[in-house]
């Protein structure tokens, strides 16, 4: 298919339909409203289910029910709405239910603002729900990458029987960019959902139960270890990242994701014109964090400069991975302020001046 010009939120909604999404449950919040708006019309047209729930909490529990019945399910919200869904996300993980969650991030904490932010990094990679659980968390950069990830995420959720969260900032949700919705993606193959509660106990000869309650601590620990094995498999197989401009012996390497990575690309181009080579590690999957990227850096690298539209959340993951190998520095804007590439260029020059002393 040729490229079509679409708004980020609508493109994600259409990508979900193309990814086989059977049902959507959500509640309005800016800046993601075009996701449910688009689906309210197009899900019905495609014989799928759309429900505008009475609240975020209701929506995530509808997701739990539909996922438990074996459907491919989506919900979307923005930062404070995702916070409300955290309990349900923990239950989904505990009951090993596949679901896809889209977070179009805005400034926080609290109600915060409605402008683009990456302040939910900890919320999407650490979660706010209780217990020993992890999510697969993606943070794409362009609309094309976003729609490809949304399409594939349903198969990943099915494979791992685990929620997948896709976080974009408000800018990606609101902007229009040409996208090809039919680019070939590699679906993760998984067996039929013989665990689903489909009301066919008689035919199956046993009842399928979807529960997250395990009162016997030894039984719960066994369950926790089973989940841990899955998370280890994710860590081994799902790390996804891009290395940029590494073959020019950079001494400074950015670590940035989402819109911040795009802005950083402009800074890399501007610095190149001045004879300064800077590289970039761009995490695409932010949890599991792409540790492997840090093993392959050129010998020239001395400094990792983490860039975020928050005041330093991914920075903590970089600190964990770094193990003292490189000097770490940070630049961030918060509250919904989208930085200009010139600010990053200035930051690089400041670091270089310091190093020259």
């Amino acid at each position, binding site marked *: 298919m040729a*490229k079509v010009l679409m708004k980020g939120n609508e493109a994600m909604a259409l990508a979900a339909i193309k990814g086989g999404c059977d049902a959507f449950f959500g509640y309005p919040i800016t800046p993601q409203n075009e996701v449910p708006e688009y689906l309210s019309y197009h899900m019905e047209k495609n014989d799928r289910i759309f429900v505008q729930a009475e609240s975020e909490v209701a929506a995530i529990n509808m997701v739990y029910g539909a996922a438990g019945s074996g459907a491919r399910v989506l919900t979307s919200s923005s930062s404070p709405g995702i916070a409300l869904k955290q309990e349900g996300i923990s239950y989904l993980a505990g009951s090993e239910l596949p679901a896809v969650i889209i977070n179009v991030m805005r400034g926080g904490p609290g109600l915060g603002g*409605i402008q683009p932010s990456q302040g939910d990094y900890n919320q999407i990679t650490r979660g706010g729900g209780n217990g020993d659980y992890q999510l697969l968390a993606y943070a794409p950069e362009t609309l094309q990458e976003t729609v490809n990830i949304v399409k594939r995420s349903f198969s990943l959720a099915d494979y791992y029987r685990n929620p997948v969260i896709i976080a974009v900032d408000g800018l990606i949700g*609101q*902007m*229009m960019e*040409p996208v090809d919705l039919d680019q070939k993606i590699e679906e993760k193959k998984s067996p039929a959902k013989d665990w689903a509660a489909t009301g066919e106990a008689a035919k199956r000869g046993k009842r399928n139960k979807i529960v997250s309650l395990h009162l016997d601590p030894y039984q719960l620990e066994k369950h926790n270890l089973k989940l841990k094995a899955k998370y280890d498999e994710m860590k081994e197989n799902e790390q996804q990242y891009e290395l940029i401009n590494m073959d020019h012996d950079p001494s400074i390497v950015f670590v940035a994701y989402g819109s911040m990575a*795009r802005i950083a690309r402009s800074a890399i181009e501007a610095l190149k014109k001045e004879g300064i080579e800077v590289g970039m590690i761009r995490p695409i999957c932010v949890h599991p964090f792409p540790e492997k990227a840090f093993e392959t850096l050129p010998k020239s690298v001395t400094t990792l400069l983490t860039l975020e539209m928050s005041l330093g959340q991914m920075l903590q993951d970089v600190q964990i991975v770094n193990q003292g190998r490189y000097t770490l520095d940070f630049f961030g804007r918060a509250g919904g302020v989208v930085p200009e*590439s010139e600010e990053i260029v200035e930051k690089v020059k400041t670091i270089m001046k310091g190093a020259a002393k």
Partner: protein
Amino acid sequence: MKNEEKVIIAGFGGQGVMLMGQILSYAATEEDLNTVWIPSYGPETRGGTANCSVTISKAQINAPVVTAPDTLIAMNEPSLEKFQSKIKKGGLLISNKSLIKDATFRDDIKVIEIDASQTAIDLGNLKVANMVVLGAYLGATKVFEETAIHKVFEKIFTGEKAKLIDLNKQALNAGMAVVGK
């Protein structure tokens, strides 16, 4: 067109500034160019301020937000005040003379003033003032051929709205005529 064009279009909510930008991005998509359209979003209302930015490029577009536009299309005074200082040196300002009077313009940019409202009223519908201005922009920058925009009209004005295609073509043409094509 040149390698890259960045434009900010700003005015009151209801003047059709978002659509002007979208039409440019649709035309860019049709011509297989890279493009990004970004709206201002917030608690905007009809009569409040609204703006969008459009980048059109032969190369991959990195930073999507336009901070220094090649062109500013200012549909009202607050927009001129807000964005005039951001225009690149030697850039272009298209100023809607119907609503922007007695303004001070920078002397290091090219300025085209156009009485969009009157031109639109002469065509029989004030609502196409935005397309008059878009015509002036195309005439001055040659970013797209007129026919590329006509194709977009045919794509976005369908069904009931198909009858608006001719009027919008006329408005575009009138705007182009102002800058002498």
